């Protein structure tokens, strides 16, 4: 019955817009008849669930994971006590990143880490010093994963890489994490944050000057500097406490420094070595040895006269090196002279001398002077006894410097493989060469039998 009961027009059309087809009057819009509600499974299947990313709804409701992520980002910002504009920046960055095609379908774990990366990126853009390690420990995420996600984020959203925060900026907020205020710990251990920051900042600057900072994780160095600074502020009472004890006293969280617990210890050792080298130059030490364990007493004086001590130490080291080079050259010359004389004598007498190796008579380069252990000295002497007669010009440039990146001091010599025959790539390949790469029939048989035996067992 095609006529509409309301207006009587015959213009009745089938409307398929909704899940039920309806017959509607095109003139007045009233519904003439509608289908039955679906009762069979077949009809139900028409409306299947549409996944979030494929939905074309214009104003999408935020998906639950996005909401959770935003809550997490806000929580992180609050823990780090960021300003409200930075918090809103981080939140909007997270929303942008979340809906970016390279992040919309990643695992939930990565999405969690993405929140942390957005916070880190916002902090960097506002020059707020936060280390990646700190955010890692808050999220309990793997550092590698964080690194990967951070780099993907920078690439995907084309964020301008901001300057890497300098260590001294990070130091202040880091020091406030140590609970050493006068009321919280016994007076022997207590230190106001300002004093701690001041002393640690000087140590961090020194560490940066002597190559202990470049290329390394910042947090272990900060921990080492704060520890040595704390010891040096009341050396008599605090010198006997180890780094672990110090962390307990200050109630540091367990993974404050990332996974490796030994790195801060190594940094403490390196820092103390440097302080010993400088301490040696103090006029009232008169060139006497300075022990790493007791150097805490001298730290204040060393830091006061940092620059001049550095210059002095380097100058005296250079003089030592030059003197040794001169001695080595002289003794080599003497040996060469004596060996050429003996060679001539041998030739005159008509006998064949064995190959002359003046190198073996070169004395080991350095007897460490005044009893202190100079790592360069032992490293250098090892090198000269290993190699055979390096002429003076070929010494590693590192020997001339007192303060070096630690890995440059113990340089591994490249295994000098004899240079391969000059190839052009187009040479003939003989059959015999190839035969060596193919098993003979007998070998194949024995191999197959052996495999069978192995699988049977």
């Amino acid at each position, binding site marked *: 019955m095609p006529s509409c009961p309301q207006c009587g027009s015959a213009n009745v059309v089938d409307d398929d817009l909704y899940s039920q087809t309806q017959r509607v009057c095109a003139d007045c819009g009233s519904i003439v008849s509608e289908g039955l509600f679906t009762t069979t499974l077949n009809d139900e299947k028409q409306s299947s669930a549409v996944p979030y990313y494929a939905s074309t709804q214009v104003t999408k409701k935020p998906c639950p994971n996005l909401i959770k992520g935003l809550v997490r980002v806000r929580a992180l910002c609050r823990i780090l006590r960021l300003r409200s504009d930075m918090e809103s920046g981080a939140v909007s960055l997270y929303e942008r990143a979340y809906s970016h095609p390279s992040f919309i379908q990643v695992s939930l774990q990565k999405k969690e880490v993405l929140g942390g990366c957005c916070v880190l990126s916002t902090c960097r853009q506002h020059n707020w010093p936060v280390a990646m390690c700190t955010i890692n420990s808050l999220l309990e995420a793997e*550092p590698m994963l964080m690194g990967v996600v951070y780099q993907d984020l920078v690439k995907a959203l084309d964020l301008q890489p901001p300057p890497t925060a300098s260590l001294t900026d990070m130091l202040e907020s880091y020091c406030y994490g140590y609970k050493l205020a006068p009321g919280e710990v016994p007076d022997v251990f207590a230190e106001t944050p300002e004093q701690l920051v001041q002393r640690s900042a000087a140590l961090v600057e020194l560490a940066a000057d002597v190559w202990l900072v470049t290329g390394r994780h910042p947090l272990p160095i900060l921990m080492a500097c704060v520890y040595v600074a704390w010891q040096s502020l009341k050396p008599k009472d605090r010198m006997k406490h180890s780094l672990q004890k110090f962390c307990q006293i200050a109630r540091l969280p367990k993974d404050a420094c990332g996974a490796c617990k030994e790195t801060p210890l190594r940094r403490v050792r390196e820092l103390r070595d440097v302080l010993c080298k400088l301490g040696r130059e103090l006029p009232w030490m008169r060139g006497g040895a300075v022990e790493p364990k007791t150097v805490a007493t001298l730290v204040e004086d060393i830091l006061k006269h940092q620059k001049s001590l550095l210059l002095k130490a380097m100058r005296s080291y250079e003089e030592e090196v030059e003197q040794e080079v001169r001695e080595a050259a002289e003794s080599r010359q003497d040996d060469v002279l004596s060996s050429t004389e003996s060679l001539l004598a041998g030739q005159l007498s008509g006998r064949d001398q064995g190959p002359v190796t003046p190198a073996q008579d070169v004395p080991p380069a350095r007897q460490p002077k005044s009893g202190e252990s100079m790592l360069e000295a032992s490293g250098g002497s090892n090198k000269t006894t290993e190699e055979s007669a390096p002429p003076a010009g070929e010494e590693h440039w590192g020997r001339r410097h007192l303060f070096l990146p630690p890995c440059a001091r113990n340089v591994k010599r490249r295994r000098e493989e004899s240079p391969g025959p000059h190839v052009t790539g187009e040479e003939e390949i003989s059959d015999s060469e190839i035969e060596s790469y193919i098993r003979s029939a007998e070998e194949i048989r024995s191999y197959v039998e052996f495999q069978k035996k192995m699988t049977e067992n």
Partner: protein
Amino acid sequence: MEPSNDVALDIIVTNVVSVFRTRCHLNLRTIGLEGNNVIYKPEVGKVLMKLRKPRITASIWSSGKIICTGATSEDEAKLGARRLARCLQKIGFKVRFSDFKVVNVLAVCSLPFQIRLIEFTKNNRPIASYEPELHPAATYRIKTLRSTVQVFSTGSITVTGPNVQSVASAVEQIYPLLFECQKTLV
């Protein structure tokens, strides 16, 4: 005067990666059985074959694509690849050596001075990037040469590029930038 004019730098090529095709299907099980110095990895679907001279490791896939790594020069890579193809021919496959291409060259170079990485990154932003918490070296990507240079504070640099020529040009290009950022204590 360009500082590089006075200094002769030793650029040591440590690895050349190349690919070629055999234009025929390869039965990996046969290669695993009949070849010497082979490792068959059925879970990944490839065979690793190691040649002694030149020292090269090849990953052989059943589609006939082969990747060779470990050569120390482009010519060596080609010789090794041809040797490998001859090997497979002898085993019994109808191999045709085709589409040989050097894909990647890795070289190292040691500069005689230390480098302040933070300064270097600041002077060359955004081409250079430095994340001490992720990697101890600063990365410098040269888009025109499609090369990447990793700069360590000790003065060692590693360069990767599509061929030896681009690697050499990359070192030449980056040397003056590094020379500026070298620093010894005053």
